[in-house]
């Protein structure tokens, strides 16, 4: 997972890029067998102990998901923590330090 968090005038712009197959569960492999679904279901972000982003996603989101959002009340040097959970129980968590524009 890669995260870019940039602050300008108290508004923090966050961009997230997660390496994930986002297998829909509808694709067939070379043998014609259905490949089981495996996709991220939730993506959240915390800043100073507060939830600043809360998303439920599914197989309609592209492979290697990209999400972007903005929140107020953040400054350069502070940390935004992004975490996700997928349909097979996989998870990842990343701390990203907010940088200047």
């Amino acid at each position, binding site marked *: 997972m890669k995260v870019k968090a940039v602050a300008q005038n108290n*508004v923090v712009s966050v961009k997230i890029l997660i390496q994930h197959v986002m297998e*829909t569960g*509808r694709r067939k492999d070379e043998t014609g067998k259905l490949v089981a679904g495996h996709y991220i*279901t*939730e993506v*959240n972000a915390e*800043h100073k*102990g*507060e*939830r*600043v*982003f*809360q*998303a*439920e*996603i*599914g*197989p*309609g*989101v*592209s*492979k290697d*998901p*990209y*999400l*972007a*959002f*903005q*929140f*107020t*009340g953040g400054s350069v040097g502070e940390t935004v923590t992004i975490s996700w959970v997928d349909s097979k129980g996989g998870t990842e968590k990343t701390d990203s330090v907010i940088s200047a524009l």
Partner: protein
Amino acid sequence: MGVSRRQFFKSVAGTIAYAAVISAVPERLFAAWNQKAFTSETLAAAITAKYGSLPIENSTAIQIKSPEIAENGAYVPVSIATTIAGASNITIFSEANFAPLVASFDIMPRMRPDVSLRLRMAKTANLVVLVQAGGKLYKAVKEVKVTIGGCGG
């Protein structure tokens, strides 16, 4: 299903109590993935599974930025923004997908009511965006054309 989480927590007296409740509640309760909505196979069923029977009206206060003709239906860049007061949730559907519900964003207290993502569209279809505010749903629709390319291995 009709009461947003934000309204629920606002009813808890005091901001300190608000923050204490948020930190005390286990994460799973915050975003239990709505399986029924995400696996519904029609737009109507997905909307009902997500929102119940809230009234829907069209709105011009929702901006959908999307390509006219998607370069590739597997990666369609979409940005949504809304100026509707009290927006608590933004949900995106791609009408012709086998499961139309693509993503749902709860607007957190400090979050701006705009999001960007890349989504999948199997064919030319309408993107349907619903914004929940109060007990109502506001709707905007935009078509994205998807073609099957001719080139490349």
